[in-house]
């Protein structure tokens, strides 16, 4: 199992790695994450050449294509700055799988150094920036969804929850099967659509049972899956990325 990271002192500049889903489907979540970093006094750099971490191809069994894309990311973040990722899953890919992906190749050392600079957004907010959040929103019950890679690979779920718990008016409720996968799994959702549908169906029922008005998660893959299923069932529960949720509750 991966060793826990060592956290640096608060820097003045950071890189932001948007992830492809935030880039194309949830840019407002990315903007919120960036603004919250800026609010702590950081300069946030958004490298233009960044794209996807490569995980979709990697997990589908196409490491050659994944490596080609990953190589681009290694080059897109050249300076020795922390790389902040608003996703436990992409974070896990960058931190734990890049070294594996480049094992035995010339880029291996670069991948190691890159991996050591990667932090999931919430973990960085909590451990490095040690943020104090002031809740300005109305009372709200919120269900939390842990992505599998945030939970088992990055192990940062407690950090995400700790941020939510700082919000005085927010009641955080836990799902009965919090540690069970929502059924996204990248290409799994389209290669095994029936199983994936059964999984997300159960997840939605679980969420419904909590009476929460909002479903918050740190991963946009899960968000797209669960949020899409919530909407498809016509439920009023809104899915939201952690950063966007915190921004909404604390700014202004």
């Amino acid at each position, binding site marked *: 199992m991966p060793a826990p990271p060592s956290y640096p002192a608060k820097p003045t500049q950071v890189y932001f790695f948007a992830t492809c889903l935030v880039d194309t489907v949830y840019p407002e979540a990315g903007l919120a994450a960036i603004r919250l970093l800026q609010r702590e006094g950081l300069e946030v750099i*958004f490298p233009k050449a960044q*794209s996807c971490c490569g995980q979709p191809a990697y*997990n589908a*069994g196409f490491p050659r294509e994944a490596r080609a894309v990953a190589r681009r990311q290694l080059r897109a973040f050249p300076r020795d700055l922390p790389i902040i990722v608003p996703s436990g899953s992409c974070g896990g890919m960058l931190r734990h799988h890049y070294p594996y992906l480049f094992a035995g190749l010339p880029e291996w050392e670069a991948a190691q150094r890159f991996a050591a600079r990667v932090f999931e957004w919430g973990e960085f907010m909590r451990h490095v920036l040690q943020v104090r959040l002031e809740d300005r929103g109305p009372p709200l019950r919120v269900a939390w969804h842990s992505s599998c890679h945030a939970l088992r690979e990055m192990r940062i779920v407690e950090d995400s929850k700790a941020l939510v718990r700082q919000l005085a008016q927010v009641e955080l409720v836990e799902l009965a099967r919090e540690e069970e996968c929502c059924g996204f799994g990248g290409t799994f959702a389209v290669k095994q659509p029936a199983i994936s549908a059964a999984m997300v169906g159960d997840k939605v029922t679980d969420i419904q049972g909590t009476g929460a008005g909002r479903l918050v998660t740190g991963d946009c893959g899960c968000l797209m899956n669960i949020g899409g299923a919530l909407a498809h069932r016509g439920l009023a529960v809104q899915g939201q990325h952690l950063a966007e949720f915190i921004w909404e509750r604390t700014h202004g």
Partner: protein
Amino acid sequence: MGERPAFDFRGNILRALADGQLRRNLQSAMDGLIRKRRAVFDDPAELEALRTVGQSLKQAALSRLPALLEELEANCTANGIQVHWAETAAEANRLVLAICQGERATRVVKGKSMVTEEIGLNHFLADHGVEVLETDLGEFIIQLAGEPPSHIIVPAVHKNRDQIARLFHARIPGAPYTEKVEELNAIARRTLRQKFFEGQVGVSGVNFAVARTGSLCLVENEGNGRMCTTVPPVHIALMGLEKVVARLEDLPPLLRLLTGSATGQIVTTYVNLISGPRRPGEKDGPRELHLILLDNGRSRILADPELRQTLQCIRCGTCLNHCPVYVRIGGHAYGFVYPGPIGEVLTPQLEGLARAGVLATASSLCQACGEVCPVRIPLPDLIRRMRTDGACQGPGGPEDGCRPPLWESLAWKIWALVNTHPGLNALGNALLGRFGRRLPRRGPLAAWSAVRTPPRFAPKSLHALAVKEGLPHE
């Protein structure tokens, strides 16, 4: 071996998902097993330390497997055990049959053993006029039902009490209808006890074989295993090559991991340590004891340093219990003997990627399996490896005629092209933002949209917004 004739994974999955009773049976059984495991491993630090020990013991044994097996053979032989080597399933079956025929045996009693399922022993013997009676309660139930096991530890886990009650009433002559567990147990016991004394040969598996002492370790809870290995005049034990460990001292941690992970027990009711046939002056035990060492593809698996980890498996079944896919589709859907995460990894290696590679799609790579495996097999990594080999991108290259669909290879090539060229990426994002909502719901999007609203691509990507916000974007 042992699989149903045509393997229709998709059909199996749809049928299983439509079976509400199956889902409820599995969920309650898996919840129970997960709870029990958690209770027995209540100290996480201690569990992690123990897993590390288990992993290193199995890895050490695998790293010198040929030598250990030779040592095992020598010491077993010295103990009076007759050792046989079987390279294939067919060879192992023929060896068992030959021993039965030498004894003029027509009735075999069998303890629970996955390796005999792997080689399809029951069918083979039945085809040659030898009747096999399963004596493990779960195996007995599914044998009555004419079904293969659906779980490697709890073979009848897909059935609940009512279903078993109806089955006993229908299939066991004179059995009254009852839903009381004790009465059902009593019926099974009565039926089985008589058969033990009629059995001319006992067949069992092996959990661990100890090279240095030449002894076979078998754990169980019903005592039927002990009966099978001591009552009939001849006992045949079958094991996969990977079951050997070096020393007797290796057993306590491995047994604790096995029973804790499998059933949440600190120790099973019976721990059998068999070190030879009956010796002069002894009151019980078989006259003859045979050990069959089965390869069936294992040496090939051993040769690959990454895939070798598959052979660490101690068949505890806990990766099945924790798998969100297994709990929804059950073991039969996987179509072969080994279901769940370990099946997704082991079956394609045993049966070939062309036949069974599709099993590796049945995982969201949620990593629940890898987190609990008592010998730390990196199951998610190995599932990914199966996918990679299936896509002809593994270190071994293309194998047994398995090819990914052309459209998929092409799709990933385009994906890579777009994601390595910022200009193309920007263009793609802009197009998605403009037309993404009007994409036809075909192919992957149709599968997605059956139970979800389609993703709503943003009119402006974060790349575009970052420029607008004036972020430094070197």
